[in-house]
């Protein structure tokens, strides 16, 4: 069966000034299976949005090929556009002075839906994204979360089989983000394929079957989300946090860390924000470290494996605010 998305040696460059070429995508090859939720992770300027734009036909690649459900994004633009939905994050992109319903009625016309069909679908989608009660309110009165849900409803109007979501939950509160993710999972169960460009590691972990890390336009790695921790090796770790009720908790945790580093089963101890990570030689070593910590009244400790966020940080590197 044809893959939902197949990009091969996809390259996109921009001429910034004379003889100054910026490479946004660098011979990227990627395959996304049908009915998959695929996460696209990378820092700002990594090329995530460039890839989404090429696949949704709003940007032409400089070279390489990309096919969506077997259709070439350059040669068969019309066919691709009918099959994909593009959901961009942010407050913009809608007619603010129109109601949610009227927005959908207009955008439905752009997908060649007749008035009756688009009216029925708009009502059903507004219900589904939880906006039925606000369907006749102008969008300018909507919160960011409501706008995001309306963006998703717009992207679903023509019942696309592949959806490209670019930062769909940025700025959403946790409850709205969770509801949004549940909706994406429901839609996947209906047979749709998703490419989700995001910075949110929790979101990628919760939603994606597979993730790809890209940086400076290059694909760094692609793997099952569950297997991502193995990228850093089958390392055993124990995480603990200092006891907030103890006197001078940070200093105490620091001295514990120094003591832990001297144990034979400990290979390294590092600080990760407000917690400490103890790298051990093996599972038995982790057990002994956990027991050692409990004996010293550390009650917040757990056996851990590298998270997607750690894989991301170690693969992409900590570059601060640089892009």
């Amino acid at each position, binding site marked *: 069966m044809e893959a939902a998305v197949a990009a091969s040696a996809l390259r996109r460059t921009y001429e910034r000034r004379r003889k100054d070429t910026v490479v946004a995508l660098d011979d990227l090859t990627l395959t996304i299976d049908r009915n998959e939720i695929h996460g696209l992770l990378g820092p700002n300027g990594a090329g995530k949005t460039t890839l989404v734009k090429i696949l949704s036909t*709003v940007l032409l690649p400089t070279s390489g090929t990309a096919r969506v459900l077997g259709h070439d994004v350059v040669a068969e633009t019309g066919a691709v556009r009918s099959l994909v939905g593009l959901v961009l994050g942010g407050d913009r*992109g809608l007619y603010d002075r129109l109601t949610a319903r009227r927005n959908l009625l207009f955008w439905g*016309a752009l*997908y060649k839906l007749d008035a009756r069909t688009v009216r029925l679908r708009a009502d059903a989608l507004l219900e589904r994204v939880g906006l039925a009660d606000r369907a006749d309110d102008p969008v300018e009165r909507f919160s960011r979360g409501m706008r995001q849900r309306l963006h998703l409803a*717009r992207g679903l109007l023509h019942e696309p089989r592949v959806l490209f979501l670019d930062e769909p939950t940025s700025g959403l509160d946790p409850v709205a983000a969770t509801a949004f993710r549940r909706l994406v999972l429901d839609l996947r169960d209906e047979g749709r394929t998703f490419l989700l460009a995001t910075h949110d590691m929790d979101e990628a972990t919760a939603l994606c079957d597979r993730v790809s890390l890209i940086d400076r336009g290059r694909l760094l790695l692609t793997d099952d989300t569950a297997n991502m921790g193995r990228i850093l090796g089958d390392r055993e770790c124990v995480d603990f946090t200092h006891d907030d009720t103890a006197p001078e908790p940070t200093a105490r945790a620091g001295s514990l860390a120094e003591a832990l580093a001297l144990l034979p089963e400990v290979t390294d101890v590092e600080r990760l924000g407000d917690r400490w990570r103890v790298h051990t030689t093996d599972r038995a070593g982790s057990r002994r470290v956990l027991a050692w910590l409990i004996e010293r009244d550390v009650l917040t400790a757990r056996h851990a494996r590298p998270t997607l966020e750690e894989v991301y940080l170690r693969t992409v590197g900590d570059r601060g605010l640089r892009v």
Partner: protein
Amino acid sequence: MTSSNERRPLAARRVPLARRASVMWRVSLVWRVSLVWRAFRLQTVLSRRSPSHALILLVAPMQTTSLLALTLHAHRPDAVASAVIAPGLIGLWVSSLDYAGRVVPEDQWAGRFTPMVAAPVPLALVVVGRVAAVVLVGVLAFAESWLVAALGFGRVLTVRSPGVFVLAIAATCLASVGTAMLLAGVISLSRARDVLQNSLSYPFYMLGGVVFPLTVLPSWVRPLSHLVFLSWSARLLRDAVHGTAHGGPLALALAAILALGAAALAGGMWLTRRLVDAARRDGTVGYA
């Protein structure tokens, strides 16, 4: 019993190619017309909620007042028709230039251009529907101008050839939509949008003979006016008022207005397609 049709080979039972092409063309035409109409309705609602789009309707009565005051002060009753018709034509031109020219840039500023380009329909059809709605607001300036002359100055402008007048207004509206489409394309592609919008009024009022007769212009300028539909419209509307539009000159004027409008429409649609192609090629679809 097996029918003769079922015994025929599959290829022979297929709908003839010409008929299929005809059906597909009709389906294609139906959704295109439907798209233009829905874009027209969208713009109607947007304009109702954007009072700035009706600004021309506030300005037109003042223009009529100024022009009529000058005409009457100069004891030129023969120029009353020009003074009443000019604000209507100016209204159409302002709608085309100022408001229709903003349709695409406003979508770009508001981040709507990207999802529009991602849709499987030509953007030009959406723009045609929207500029048509914007331009037709300008038509109301004709009625306002007539009312100001009648109620404010007691000068009821009698149209001696009402049929020709209606035809001239209809042709002028169509040409305005075509021209607005061209201007929308030019302004959207230009890096100097504001400069263009601010500078394209008076040259066309002059070349269109909207405010004064073309005969007062230098002779070498006059041929240029034939390329401006307003010049044909202004003359035809005045002739309809005076009852002097007949036969060949009437047909020529109508044909010229419609031909110039159609050429502008084709140019505008081509420019809009070029705008989308260039944005996809240069990676500027998301730019404002």
